[in-house]
Structures are given as structure tokens and as C-alpha cells.
């Protein structure tokens, strides 16, 4: 994907572009809203990674002008938590997704690729990985013929993993999706619940640890 990164903190911008390039994207980095707006008008970017607090034109103003100029590039907003709730709630500002600082680079990359294929499919009624089937209508889980009982957190966690088989979820991302906030304890909780899930469903293993990155669910290997 052709990606524009607008972030005034030079070092963070460098990390971001490096991670995106490693993931096979092509990234342009700019440090202020004015020149980014100009660049977005000249070149068609698939995605803009946008910091909210920028010198001169800030992220909110950038978005407003971008949408006014009918530039339909997808926008992933980077925000320190608190900025958003104070000024705009949710994604009402016209961004497609947002990510709270500090984020894991893997998560940024994952979100970026998710934005590339979003909104295509209808929400399924059944999730399946190998012989593991989760019925979303009644939250019943089966492995082959075996019924498996799950606690509420185990169920939510598994649902998140099974929605995107093969995708690596970082601990932070799982925390946000399952526990709805980031907390010192929640990191530990992710590990606890992953191991519980494994005990209940694994043989042969479906949930895999990707070293230093996070977890994924897939059939093999």
C-alpha cells in the first residue's frame, strides 16, 4: 500500500515508516499538517497514518480539509488517549480507525493491513478454524464432536482470535479488544486466559505464540 505517515515526532515517524516498509508497504513521512495536506492532494495515498497533535494544522483540521477536498484515502489516527474523548467521540471526525499511543508496531502494521481489506465481508454466524467451531448465535464451542464450556473472558478472547485466523494479535491489542483497556494486570491476564483456552481446546494445538509479538490461531503449524 502507498502510505503517508504524518507525525511530528521524528523518531516515532522513523520507527513507523520502518515497520511499514518491513511489512511490504511503501511509506512517505511528513512532519507537519500543511505539507502533508499538499502531498495528499498531489498523490493518491491508500492510507494516511495521522497524528492528532501537529504543529500548525492539527490532525482534526487536517481531516476536515482532507474530506472537504474529497480525498477519500483511508485514515488511521494516532492519538494519546484523552485527546479524543475530550474533543470528538468515536470516529465521528471521519477517520477509519484509531490507535492509542503507545502502541505496538506490530499492532499498527496489523491495523494497516486490516484497513486494506475492511468492510468487504458480512459478519459470519459461525467461526471455524480446523475442527474448532464457534457458533456465534448461541456461543457454543465444539472441537470435532466434543462440546467445550468456556467462561465469559475465554469466549470473548477466542472470538477475537477466530475472527481473523492467522493474524498475529499483540497482547495490547487483545487487552483492548477483550478487556477494553490497557492495564498492568491485563497483560498477565492475556497469558493466563490464553493458557486456559489452550488447555480446553488444544490437541493438536491451534493457538500459537509468535515470539515477542503475540498470539495467533491457525490450523498448521
Amino acid at each position: 500500500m502507498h502510505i503517508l505517515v504524518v507525525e511530528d515526532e521524528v523518531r516515532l515517524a522513523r520507527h513507523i515508516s520502518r515497520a511499514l516498509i518491513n511489512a511490504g508497504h511503501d511509506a512517505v513521512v511528513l512532519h507537519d499538517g500543511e505539507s502533508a495536506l499538499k502531498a495528499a492532494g498531489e498523490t493518491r495515498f491508500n492510507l494516511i497514518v495521522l497524528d492528532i497533535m501537529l504543529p500548525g494544522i492539527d490532525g482534526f483540521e487536517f481531516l476536515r480539509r482532507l474530506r472537504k477536498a474529497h480525498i477519500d484515502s483511508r485514515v488511521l489516527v494516532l492519538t494519546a488517549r484523552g485527546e479524543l474523548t475530550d474533543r470528538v467521540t468515536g470516529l465521528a471526525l471521519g477517520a477509519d480507525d484509531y490507535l492509542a499511543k503507545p502502541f505496538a508496531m506490530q499492532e499498527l502494521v496489523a491495523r494497516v493491513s486490516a484497513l486494506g481489506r475492511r468492510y468487504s465481508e458480512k459478519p459470519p454466524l459461525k467461526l471455524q478454524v480446523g475442527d474448532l467451531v464457534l457458533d456465534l448465535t448461541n456461543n457454543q464451542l465444539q472441537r470435532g464432536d466434543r462440546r467445550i464450556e468456556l467462561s465469559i473472558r475465554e469466549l470473548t478472547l477466542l472470538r477475537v482470535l477466530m475472527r481473523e485466523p492467522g493474524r498475529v494479535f499483540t497482547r495490547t491489542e487483545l487487552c483492548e479488544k477483550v478487556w477494553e483497556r490497557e492495564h498492568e494486570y491485563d497483560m498477565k491476564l492475556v497469558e493466563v486466559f490464553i493458557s486456559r483456552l489452550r488447555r480446553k481446546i488444544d490437541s493438536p494445538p491451534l493457538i500459537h505464540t509468535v515470539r515477542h509479538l503475540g498470539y495467533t490461531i491457525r490450523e498448521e503449524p
Partner: protein
Amino acid sequence: MKTWPLRWKLALFAALLAIVATIAGAATTWTVMRHEEIAAFDRRLTTDAQELFRDVEHFQRDPHTNPSAFQEIFVPLALRNRVIEVTDAAGHTLYLSPGLREPLSSDGISEFHTRKIGGRTIRMGEFVQNGMTLRVGADLKEINQIGRDIFHGMLVAVPTVLIVIVIGSRWVASKAVAPVEEIRQAAAQITARRLDQRLPVPPTRDEIAGLIEVLNAAFDRLQRSFEQSARFSADASHHLKTPIAVLRAGVEEILADADCSPHTQATAEGLLQRIHQLNSVADTLLLLARADAGRLDLHQEEFDLSELLEGVLDDARALAEPLALTVESDVPSHLPLKADRVFVGMIAQNLLENAIKYNQHGGRVRVIARAVNGSVQFSVGNSGAGIPKERIPHLFERFYRGRGDERVAGSGLGLSTAWELARAHGGDISLQRADTDWTELNVSLPRAA
């Protein structure tokens, strides 16, 4: 009376003032009039005396009368109803009016004066002429009548005046207070959400206009500080989070590097954990800053507290496992609540985390939830070593840690954050029990904040 509306207070004060003024006016009038009446009375007595002397002189010159003796005929008709005593130079009584049974005692007063005779109040005067002394007096009854008339007049006038004053002053006070009431209503419209509004300044240059200008200036300052605090939490958030993001990205890059030594990996892993801690503290501080500025935005939604507690209890059981804690719960199947779900979740998480952290190996944690009238309450109890008495008043203070136990991880912000969040919903957290073997906190939240 302190709670009365201003217009009634003004009316009452005006009425009291009117009563005092009327009574004082009547008293002054009565005094002046009585003084005038008595002077006129004295003049009349003088005229009477002169008439008597004239008649005596006239009759003494008459050959038909005995000049040496004083006769009743000497007394003019006009003086017959007066009190009269006539004595000669030697002091012998020549005449006593029928109203007097005995001679008036000589009191040596020659001027006009008032005395009591036989239960009557008599005004007396003494006149001397041709060797005769005449004492003439009359009953003051007739001028006392005037005082009574004034008194009767007042009995009718005072209530009338009072009614007019009360109604009139209430009307006047309403007129005077009306702009104040308008200001009150306009000021009530200026809430945190509409701080940019101002009170309209009237074209007059009176006290009300002055008051409005002062109020508007106060609103200006309020709006400025409000905006400052809002900007502060956004700025602080940005300036804290961006460096943390840089740190995290750097450390993660080290971790992802397959070439670096296991020692470096371990160090980086430890650093990453610290970064998470730092981030969590920053989040909490920013949350508290927003709460202090009164800018904690509650995203209210209907949800089932039982379901939320089920998740939190699930976490608690997972965390309690290595400590061999028993987690008991008594939660009804449905507890509908309208509140900020994320914040209520944080309250429950914070309390349960504490219940686990401050517990002892093999101890107990118990959660009970109930709907009580218009509120929903849940209590979290634990079999920890308890909270020392002197620490109880500081329980909800920031960075305060119940047991001062450095081995227990955490920032010391959990309970104060939970308390702020409960308060933001119009609820409360209270210490229910603080025994040596059981500590219990109770959270109360209105069913719809």
C-alpha cells in the same frame, strides 16, 4: 425567616417601619396638641378669673348688696361648673363651689398646675386681686377626650396603613427584585457545556448593570480556566504518550532483533513491562486530571452489571489461582444499570485487584451485588490483614497505600480512581468493614446516573 423570598422580607421590614413611624407620628401629634390644649385651657381659666373679679368689683359697688360679704351671686354663670375657692387676705374662706366639700389645701403653687381632687384630674390656677385670692380649676376630662380620639383613630388607621404598606412594598420589592430573578435564570443557563454564553447587560447604568458586568467577568475567568484545564489534559496526554510510544517502538525493535543476545532480550522485556506500567500510571493521572477539571465525559449506556461483574470475576479467579484464593460471588442474574460501562468496569476491576493483592495465601474474596431502591450496589470483601485504624481516613487519597507494603505492586491510585469514577456517576464508595480479618468496600451507583 432567613429562607423567605427577598420580596416578602422587604415587605415585612417596610410594614414594621410603617407601624413604628405611625405610632411615633401619633405620639408627637398627641404631645403637641395636648400642650396647645392646656395652654388654651389656662387662658380660659384666666379669662374666667378676670370675669369673676370684674363681677365682684361691680357687685361691691352696688348699694343693694353687702359689700363686705361674698355672695354666690358674684360668681358668673359660666364659672358655676368650675371648681372655685375664694379667700380673703387673712386666709378665711369666702366661697367654696358646691363641687368642693372642704377648702383646697394651700400648696403654695401660684402658677397653673394639675392636681387630683376627689378622683378627678383638675387643672388649677391662682389669681390675686383686691385682697382676694381666687383659685379656679376645671376638669381636664374634655381635653383628655382628644387623646382618646387620636388613639381610636389610630386603631383604625394603623391596620389600614399596614395593609397598604405590605401590599405596596411587596409590589415595589417584586419590581426591584425582578432583574435579580432574571439574572439568576440567565446564569443558570450558563452551564459547563455553554460557558461561552454571557448575561445581557442592560443599557441602564444602575447597580444591576454593575452586578451583571462583575458576573460576566467571573464567567470569563471561569471559561478561561475551564478551557485551560481541558487543553492541559489534552496537551499533557500528548506530551506524555508520544515519548512513551517512541520508547516502546525502540524496545520492541530490540526485541524483534533475532541477532541480539539473550541478556539484551531479557533486559528489553523488563523495560517493556516498565513502559506498560508507566503508561498505565499516565492514563490514570490523566483520568484524575479530567475528573478534577470536572471534564470526565460519561458515555452512558444501558447494560447488565451482572454480565460485567461476571467478566471481572472471571479475571479475579484467574489472578487468584496462584495465591490459592477462593473467589465467592452472590450476583443476581440481571442487574440493569445506565452508566459508563468502561468506568464501572474499572471500579470493579480496581476493587477486585485490591482484594486479591492485599489478601493472604489461601484467603477469601467475596462479591455481593444487589439492586437497592433506585441504586445498584456491590460489595467486595477480602480476608486480608485489614486496614490499620489510623489509615482509614486516608483510604481514598491518591498515592496512598493501605498497608504501606512495598512488596505489593501498584501505584496507589486504584482506590482513589475508583472513588472519583463512582462520584462522577453520582454514586459513592464506602468502607463497610475494616476488621483484622475482613475488609469490605461497598460501591453504590444510581440506576441511571
